[in-house]
């Protein structure tokens, strides 16, 4: 009921992944009304209850036997019974300190010799780069986070994970699925692993409450990836209603409160001690989700409460990529390969090639050796050969040499992006890099380099090997510094804002100054105005632009993507926007897995989390508010994207870059979000009824007065938007009513009559 999903995970051959907690559920005698584990026939929408087939007993769900391939694997098996018994019966009530615990594991692992028996395990859950993709440079001491809860870390060393290879950045890791391992085996294997983490699978009469909705009582059930709550309003004989269907990955923080005070009095009362316990001791779990929703579960029984809490905690912090739900999610309406190749870079290149021959598509990075975070194909100046690219890549951090990000059809200027040059304290130079950038500009042209750091920070970066392009080596490029916040300050700003929005104290008198002190809106403003600057350089100054910050994977992408929304009308359509995200965020190597690992509620130590993508969505929302007719999609799409970036059924936002996606076979074994979004029934929800094609550049206002808090996101679960939704529905109805005569003709007329080059190209496309 709370988690709006359109596709209940349907039971497929791989349903074992869902029916994981075999052992613990087996304890239960009474059938649960409906667990909906895999048999849910309906779609739980908020506010609409969904009937689930009765009599679906999770205990009766057979877990398929492990795949023969796995059974045949060498070694004593992938799950030792003693490991399962080793579960700690007393979970700690303290909030977990994952950082500490993980470091402990790391040390254990470091001294563990690699044993051949472990090989199949590593196949099942490939760790290596997927678990610690940040590499030794950033966190050498944290090799991996295992999927075990800290309670499991007491195990004997032989049961621990294979040694984390150290020193080399991209260690040789057995790639899953290469011949030996298939989907079924992974599912069966992980099901067992998840079973370990689930201490109590079902609890009866749990009270679920959530802001804005009436509280419901029902049976809570934990599966390997979901938290389900089904209620039986009509008694046990009636089919249950799924009230909650929460992806556990979505849980950002678990807070528990146990009330058992005063129940340790001597059992002089008539009731037995057991009754007393049942009646009295209870616990409340507050689940704070990554999509900013807050749920409260009141669970009878202290032990159950603690078990549930620690199970959720453990399951939600499973960090192994292959354990992610997208690898198990198999909706019936979609095909696996659908949507993965909707926006090939080749097609984008063809659009450019039809207008200029100065660019070529290079596959210098086809094996990800030139730049591990770039996609296999990149668009580069035609005059620069692959060897020069390789050399230029060595001069840029992470190998991110300048590549084309956007070609402005109106005047043929381009936007490039890269990472910082590795000039270092000795002011190193790289002829190839200079040539590459020189090739972008025609004779006598000048370009702009927009550095997303302050001049001071850029200078300081020289000390650590980075730096900027010196004027002497790049005489035709002029540098502009526009400091944009990223990393920890941005995440902290996000956390502060969410905290302020959730402050339910009556005294909201100081709301505005509190909002100001969160500084979120100034980040939005800075991002928008930097993007405007880039767009202005291209559209007004007719100069090409190179955007980079330090790594070139965060603020750089924010600026290039936003500038394209401002400049290019085709990026403002639903499909075009998806293509933009695919090209400028996903393929361009924004580390989604790292940046979106935790959201605003997490108590965990901040590592690499930063809401860059959310900031981008917020900026697009500002554009959509300032130009209500010019974007084909509405707020709903932006919200969906935010949700999916942090926790998703789909593989689109998994991993940090294309290389990792390749290793994990994301495109082969998960579903694409775009395939789901572009289904006709689904697509309708995301369209802006007021859209009419606007071929012009949309210059937003970046004054502080114009930047608004995105209430639809930050207050989504706090305040009902019922009245606004009703109004939108009404608008939609009105627009539908008179669409053919008014809107279309006007739009066409405009395209005909305005002699705007952008309009013409748009029509030609």
């Amino acid at each position, binding site marked *: 009921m709370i988690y709006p999903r359109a596709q209940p995970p349907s039971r497929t051959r791989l349903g074992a992944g869902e029916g994981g907690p075999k052992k613990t559920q087996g304890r239960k005698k009474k059938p649960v009304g409906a667990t909906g584990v895999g048999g849910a026939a309906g779609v739980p929408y908020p506010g609409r209850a969904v009937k689930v087939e009765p009599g679906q007993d999770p205990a009766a769900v057979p877990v398929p036997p492990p795949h023969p391939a796995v059974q045949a694997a060498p070694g004593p098996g992938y799950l030792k019974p003693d490991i399962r018994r080793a579960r700690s019966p007393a979970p700690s009530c303290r909030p977990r300190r994952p950082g500490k615990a993980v470091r402990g594991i790391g040390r254990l692992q470091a001294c563990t010799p690699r044993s051949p028996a472990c090989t199949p395990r590593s196949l099942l859950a490939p760790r290596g780069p997927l678990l610690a993709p940040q590499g030794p440079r950033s966190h050498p001491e944290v090799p991996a986070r295992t999927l075990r809860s800290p309670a499991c870390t007491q195990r004997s060393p032989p049961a621990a994970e294979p040694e984390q290879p150290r020193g080399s950045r991209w260690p040789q890791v057995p790639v899953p699925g290469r011949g030996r391992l298939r989907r079924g085996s992974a599912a069966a294997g992980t099901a067992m692993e998840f079973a370990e983490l689930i201490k109590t699978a079902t609890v009866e009469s749990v009270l679920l409450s959530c802001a804005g909705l009436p509280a419901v009582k029902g049976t809570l059930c934990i599966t390997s990836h979901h938290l389900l709550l089904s209620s039986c309003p009509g008694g046990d004989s009636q089919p249950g209603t799924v009230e909650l269907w929460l992806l556990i990955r979505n849980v950002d923080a678990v807070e528990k409160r146990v009330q058992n005070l005063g129940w340790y009095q001597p059992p002089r009362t008539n009731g037995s001690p057991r009754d007393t316990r049942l009646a009295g001791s209870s616990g409340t779990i507050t689940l704070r989700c990554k999509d900013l929703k807050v749920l409260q579960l009141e669970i009878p029984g202290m032990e159950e409460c603690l078990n549930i809490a620690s199970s959720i905690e453990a399951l939600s912090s499973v960090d192994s990529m292959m354990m992610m739900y997208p690898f198990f999610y198999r909706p019936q309406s979609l095909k696996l390969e659908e949507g993965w190749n909707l926006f090939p870079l080749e097609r984008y290149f063809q659009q450019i090639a039809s207008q200029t021959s100065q660019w070529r598509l290079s596959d210098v990075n086809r094996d990800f050796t030139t730049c591990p975070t770039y996609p296999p194909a990149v668009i580069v100046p035609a005059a620069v050969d692959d060897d020069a690219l390789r050399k230029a890549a060595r001069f840029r951090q992470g190998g991110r040499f300048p590549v084309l990000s956007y070609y402005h059809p109106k005047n043929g200027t381009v936007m490039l992006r890269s990472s910082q040059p590795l000039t270092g304290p000795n002011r190193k130079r790289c002829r190839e890099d200079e040539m590459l950038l020189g090739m972008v500009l025609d004779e006598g042209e000048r370009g702009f380099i927009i550095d997303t750091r302050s001049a001071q920070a850029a200078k300081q970066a020289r000390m650590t090997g980075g730096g900027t392009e010196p004027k002497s080596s790049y005489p035709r490029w002029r540098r502009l510094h526009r400091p944009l916040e990223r990393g920890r300050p941005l995440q902290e700003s996000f956390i502060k804002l969410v905290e302020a929005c959730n402050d339910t104290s009556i005294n909201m008198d100081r709301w505005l100054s509190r909002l100001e002190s969160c500084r979120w809106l100034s980040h939005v403003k800075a991002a928008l105005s930097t993007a405007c600057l880039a767009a202005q350089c291209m559209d007004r100054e007719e100069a090409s632009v190179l955007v980079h910050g330090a790594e070139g994977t965060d603020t750089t992408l924010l600026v290039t993507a936003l500038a394209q929304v401002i400049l290019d009308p085709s990026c403002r359509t639903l499909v075009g926007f998806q293509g933009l995200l695919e090209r400028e965020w996903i393929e361009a190597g924004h580390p989604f897995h790292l940046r979106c690992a935790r959201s605003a509620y997490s108590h965990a130590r901040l590592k690499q989390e930063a809401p860059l993508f959310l900031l981008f969505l917020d900026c697009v929302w500002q554009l959509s508010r300032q130009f209500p*007719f010019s974007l084909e999609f509405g707020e709903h799409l932006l919200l969906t994207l935010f949700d999916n970036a942090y926790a998703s059924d789909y593989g689109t936002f998994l991993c940090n870059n294309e290389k990792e996606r390749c290793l994990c076979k994301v495109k082969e074994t998960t579903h694409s979000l775009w395939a789901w979004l572009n289904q006709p029934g689904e697509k309708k929800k995301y369209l802006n009824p007021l859209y009419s094609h606007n071929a012009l550049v949309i210059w937003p206002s970046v004054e502080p007065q114009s930047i608004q808090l995105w209430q639809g996101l930050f207050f989504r679960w706090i305040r009902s938007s019922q009245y606004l939704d009703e109004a939108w529905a009404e608008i939609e109805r009105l627009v539908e009513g008179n669409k053919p005569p008014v809107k279309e003709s006007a739009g066409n007329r405009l395209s005909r009559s305005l002699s705007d080059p952008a309009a013409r190209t748009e029509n030609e496309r």
Partner: protein
Amino acid sequence: MPGPGAGPGGAGRGGRCCSGLPGFSVPAPAAAAALGPPGQSPSAMSGAPGGRRPAFPGLPGELVLEEAAGARQRCREGDGSVPGTLLCTNRRVAFLPAQAPGSHAFLHSEYDVALPCIRKLVAASSFTKPKVLTAASTLKFIPEELAVFCRDFRLLRFHFHENGLALQAFRVANAIAQAREAAAWLGDAGEGHDGWSCPAEAPLEDEDEEEEEGSAATLLFESLRDWEKELKRLGAVGWRVSAVNERFDMAPSLPQYLWVPSGLLDHDLKRTFAHFEERRVPRLCWHHPGGGDLLRAAGFHAASEPGSEDVKCLEALLLGGRGPCVLADTAELPTLADIQVAHLKLRALCLPGAAAEEKWLSALEGTRWLDHVRTCLRKAVEVALLLAGRRCSILLQEPSDRDLNCLLASLVQLLGDPHTRTLPGFQSLVQREWVAAGHPFPHRLGLLRCDSPREEAPIFLLFLDCTWQLVRQFPAAFGFTEAYLLALHDSSFAPYFSTFLFSCQRQQGQGSPHRPCSQTYTPVNGWRDPQPGVPRAGRTGSPACRLPTVWDWGLRYSRHQRAQFRNPAGAAGTVGAPDAADPQTPSRPTDAWPGPGAGNVFVLTKGTLSPQLFPWRSGRPPPRLSRWAPSLESLGERGGSPGGNQPPAPPPGLLLPCAAGPSVRLWQRCYLRGLPEAQRGRFAPSPAGLAEELTLLQDRLSAWQPAGPCTKAASSPLTPSR
């Protein structure tokens, strides 16, 4: 080239919105005259030196004092400008675009500003620093630009070309400064709204029927029939219209007709007047279909000591066997001075460059204007909830009953009565609760020159802001739009209308005989004077001398603008009409009253009810029976804390706005009009709109070209009317 000096805001500032199509602002004065509406010769206006401009359709008695042809008005977007003529008359500063887009609306809202509405006049030149012009300090240099800061938050900027305009620019600037001083409306107390009376003009030919309908449905509450009609609509049994104040002799500031309990004879009613401040007795404002009544009254007169007969009458008036009476005073609301200070601060903040970029939000908070909006909304929600939940009568009591009571009474009705959320319904509401009820508009809006500034307090603007918040929170519940509220906001400063020019009904019809025939206002007669062209002094006040009401939107707003007043998505009443069949919502049954039956008097303070005695009742106050427990403050404040108790579902038909900090917003489209940058996008024309504009221009062009000798392609400035 965006230099390094361009700050973060520089990028946006340099940018131009999509409306700023460069080719569109080529002046074509020659074409303008030909394209003007037929029948207007350029020399129609007397006293107009030079005739190369479209006719200036002045108000009767209006004289053009100075004019500067070839001035340009800067567009909103900052870098566009419209060529035309700047006029200074004895009533207003008007700008005549070379090609008036909707020239039939001769009081075009976009292009003119009444002299009293000018707050500050600044002349600027590139040689000297800007100078504020007053009548006393005249201009010593040739202005290149003239900025007119208006009280309604508009900022009009006129630009003069260098070539040959020097003298005209100088003269027109000085003339405006002088005229502004001279033209101040002396007020209802004084005699001379000499210049402002009864304009005579040919009726507008193209008034569309739909609009007539709209304003005809507006009840002006100047006649008995209006009061009776409205009482019937409310279905308030047990109430009648009393004509006891028909000659304004009982209470000069009250309307002629009052809604009083049927059981109370006029003879008895008369006994009660003396016991209230300004003799403003309790009377019905609104009757909830569930049985509750909303009354308003001034404070109890401090020195009055009613005799036993009087007490009987008073209690019949207040209690009348209708259940308990709750007194809701305005102590929690901001004082008039608070509101005025907040408004001044807000106005100062909304000027260009007033606040540092990073400090905008806290500066906005510092004005406390939004605080006041919240307080008013919260109080209105309290009263509306109480009224919807229980069968009682609530007496709004303010010492004067002329300011915050107006605001509160109308807000409560907006929350509870779907009819008032339609356009005619809202106009009737303003007419009844503000105009007829005697809100001293001229004093409060500061339109009087020699008035003590202490009386100024824009309560009405605060009410409009509160209404805007409701419109924003419940977009589908209102039949009118933000554009309508904006028009009403601006019109309250335009002294061409009778609506906001008087402090009470008595002044409006001062000395005039009772007009039994004047029913609802018929705009057919709009501006027509039976004795055309004879300006009459206001004091003679013959019925002939009638200014139009502000509800004749056709006078100032083009059809296109008026079309924007109506909310197409606002199916008024869909949010739910109060259910008359089921008066008590189940959540708050009537029998939940703490006291033993009717006759109780309570006072509502901070969301709780406590027993109270009327001041004339001596003796010990009854023991506190109970507090009215459900904390109203939390209602609507938050949507329920996680796991917390759910707010009860609002009774049907009742809007419960959220008055918490994040939900109350700045009315940007109104207050930030002086900051063109902040308005980008808000007024961004849609491509469809531009396309329409373009075809219109092309049509005009093709219609004109065969006739006109000029071969130059005429183009037009974009109408900045959207």
